[in-house]
């Protein structure tokens, strides 16, 4: 169940995955971007962890909004406003119904798309969020769904974000933002939030 506590634990697990894979994320970004996705997010989640640990957050909405502000303030790259917009939209939706994880994540996707204007198939984090939203809706989110979505970005040609400068040359590489979004949803699964 999603509560202020499990939401904080979810984001904490996400932060741990980012920290563990910081070098890998930047390496992926080196191939088709500017090589900073890992360090951008590591900087962001560190600020997020500090805010979350400060405590005093009583609702899911509070937790998500606090995380959003930290990421917006600290990331420095495109992923900052994108994850930030996702979390702001998710916080707002959690204010409506903090138990409905599928609707909350869907609101996050809408936030990302409002900010970045990317559609499915443009080799961005959207290519993970879309199938995850679908799977959440039908109660069928699994590690495999996430992994397939992440891997699916490999053969895509980037038409949004920095990788789009490379055109055809972006094909054959995983999208770093898709990989980091994969961590977010793995952390969601592992946190048991979706269990009845």
């Amino acid at each position: 169940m999603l509560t202020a506590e499990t939401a904080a634990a979810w984001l904490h697990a996400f932060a741990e995955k980012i920290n563990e894979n910081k070098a890998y994320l930047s390496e992926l970004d080196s191939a088709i971007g500017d090589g900073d996705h890992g360090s951008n997010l590591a900087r962001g989640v560190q600020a997020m962890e500090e805010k979350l640990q400060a405590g005093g957050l009583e609702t899911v909405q509070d937790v998500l909004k606090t995380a959003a502000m930290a990421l917006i303030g600290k990331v420095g790259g495109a992923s900052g406003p994108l994850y930030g917009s996702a979390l702001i939209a998710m916080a707002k939706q959690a204010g409506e119904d903090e138990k409905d994880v599928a609707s909350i994540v869907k609101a996050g996707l809408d936030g990302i798309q409002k900010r970045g204007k990317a559609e499915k198939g443009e080799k961005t984090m959207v290519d993970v969020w879309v199938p995850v939203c679908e799977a959440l809706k039908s109660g069928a989110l699994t590690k495999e769904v996430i992994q397939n979505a992440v891997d699916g970005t490999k053969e895509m040609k980037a038409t949004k974000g920095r990788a789009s400068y490379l055109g055809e040359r972006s094909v054959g590489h995983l999208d770093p933002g898709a990989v980091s979004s994969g961590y977010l949803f793995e952390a969601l699964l592992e946190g048991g939030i979706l269990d009845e």
Partner: protein
Amino acid sequence: MSKKAVGILIVSHIPEIAEGVAELLKEAAKDVSITYAGGTDDGGVGTSFEKINTAIAKNEADDVFAFYDLGSAKMNLEMAMEMSDKYIRLMDTALVESAYTAAALIQADAELDNILKQLEQLKVK
């Protein structure tokens, strides 16, 4: 139109670019309010929502042309715009060339329509 009615905001991933472009513009537009935000909070490569907010607030105009280098700067700019009371015109035009054009035209008291028309030709994003 007073020269102070319309301002210019420069946003870049690199502090030196933001500052340097403002300097280039000042040569041709000494009376125009030009503010800038470059780099992350700690001076690294990237953009900072906070720095952009500050640069918007510091601009003496309430109607501001905003120019940026790459797409991720644009997203931070949009977030800042949504939180500002000022009228920010986000331009998807060539950073240096279009900011210079706008600055020179504002300094010369050109009509806003005329400025917009000239900038349209510099759209590259």
